[in-house]
């Protein structure tokens, strides 16, 4: 999708939905050295998936270790120090996935360097690299007025939230979500709302929680505006 289609010529927000389907890559790592080697070669799409795909998978645990690499370091290598270093990596600050790849490899190599032995996992707990394809489809919902999102947001699917709030950062040249990008099209009118959305951290919660937070931000903003 081009960005113009999201925030269309008449500044209309085109609501889309998406479905992610995962594929095996055949790449696996049983110890930290293998993880480093595979990270150097695996498709960038796979690294992206291991940071964000968790949002679309069954999960309740470890919100502080949201990316799969940190989760594996914690649960399978039992290396808390490494898990903490990997968990702090924020993919939203990278414009290029190759930079993200390089930083991950650095963290892994640093850890190998300072360890007396290479941390390893049991065979059934090896890290399995997967990647994904994203299928985007139109919901036929069009939004002309930002205030309309107060009622609409709570009913959007997890897939739509993923598409407009997470996937958008990879699509949009400014690396921001579709909501902010669309609101910017109204000039300074919604500057405060844009600022509040920017403060929403997509890392520590599920897509349902993200939707609730977004809904709360829009609702409270327009209540404030009415007053």
């Amino acid at each position, binding site marked *: 999708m081009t960005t113009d289609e999201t925030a269309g010529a008449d500044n209309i927000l085109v609501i889309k939905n998406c479905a*992610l*389907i995962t594929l095996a890559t055949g790449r696996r790592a049983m110890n930290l050295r293998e993880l480093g080697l595979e990270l150097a070669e695996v498709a960038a799409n796979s690294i992206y998936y291991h940071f964000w795909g968790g949002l679309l998978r*069954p999960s309740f645990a470890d919100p502080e270790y949201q990316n799969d690499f940190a989760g594996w370091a914690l649960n399978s290598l039992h290396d808390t120090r490494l898990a903490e270093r990997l968990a702090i990596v924020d993919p939203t600050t990278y414009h290029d996935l190759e930079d993200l790849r390089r930083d991950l490899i650095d963290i892994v190599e640093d850890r190998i360097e300072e360890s007396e032995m290479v941390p390893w996992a049991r065979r059934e707990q090896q890290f399995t690299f997967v990647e994904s*394809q994203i299928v985007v*489809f139109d919901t036929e919902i069009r939004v002309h007025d930002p205030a309309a999102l107060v009622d609409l947001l709570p009913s959007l699917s997890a897939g739509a939230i993923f598409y407009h709030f997470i996937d958008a950062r990879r699509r949009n040249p400014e690396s921001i979500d579709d909501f902010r990008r669309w609101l910017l099209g109204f000039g300074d009118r919604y500057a405060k709302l844009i600022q509040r959305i920017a403060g929403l951290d997509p890392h520590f919660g599920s897509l349902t929680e993200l939707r609730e937070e977004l809904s709360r931000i829009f609702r409270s903003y327009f209540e404030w505006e009415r007053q």
Partner: protein
Amino acid sequence: MSGMLDEYARVVGHDVIRELRQLAKALQGLTVVNVNSTREGGGVAEILNRLVPLQRELGLNSLWETIAGDAPFFASTKTFHNALQGVETMVPKSMLDAFEQTTQTNAERLHDLLKDADVVFIHDPQPVGLIARVPERRGKWIWRCHIDVSHPYRPVWKYLRQYAQQYDASVWHLAAFAQPMGHPQYLIPPSIDPLAEKNVTLDPVEVDRTVEEHHLDRGRPIVVQVSRFDRFKDPLGVISAYRMAKKYVPLQLVLAGGGASDDPEGAKVLEDVNTAANGDPDIHVLLLPPDAHRTINALQRIADIVLQKSTREGFGLTVSEAMWKEKPVIGGNVGGIRLQVVDYQTGFLVSTPEGAANRIRYLIRHREKIGEMGAKAHRLVLENFLLTRQLRDYLTLMVAIRSGSKERIEF
């Protein structure tokens, strides 16, 4: 909205069905042919029984064909099935001949339909060879493997791989099961059907009747494991865990399963289980007929805690069945159980009978946790392991594979 989709909307919500309709727009009128080996019995038939009519309701021309075979053919495919799950077994040439001959006969019968189909799903090893007999294929062919092939007996796998590799893509339950193939390998976990007899809401009267029939005492906690009498399901480990836990908390154990009568290994396991139970009136070993779906349903609802203490497991859909009924599950830390049991959230993952015993004691002592975990378990299944999610994955897969191997597909 009409028909079956309406019924599912009442369970999963209208928004989920609306999404399916939106996704299916890209597939309107496509002829999709599913081929497996039987219309009745087994998980694949159970799923196709629902998936095919649902796809038709969504506007796809979805069809379901089965291959016909004689006893020697099914003997060969049973051998293949065991070998794919790691059993070392000799396959005589006569077996391969029976397999090839039956494949050829079925290919001749189904040739025109398969040749012209837009998408063909071939399920499991029995019909895998059809692809080689339909060289002028118009559509995309997908091999759906429902078996745990993580550690296959290599000679048999190599033989079947010559066919599997010819497909445009394959589908596996888990990444750990996928074998190197040289084509896209999609990952789609299985699902349970909330409207099937095994999972529908039961009248309390029917549940009470099951309690009475099996002489259970609802005044004391009940732990249930539903599975075939198979060593990999570790029924002896379950009895051992029950004994350890019972020293501290009052307890009854139900081990319910079927299919042992025609399986020599199963009969032996059942005998061992009865020996281990040693006449304990609080251990209920139930050998149920294959169609006892409502009894299984009732037993899962009666349970305070459900166990699935497997030492090896493909996916273990009995876990999702129990979770759907709002039960915490204490499961073996293996295979697909790990995907369903989120440790400390929807139940506990354990590696030993001792671990299972500890968790049983903990949950019986902290009964509020049973409700909390059960509610989370139900939500997890609602969002991830119902038939509508699998249907959505299949629709996504069809859109994706028809668009080539692009990372992003829009319509």
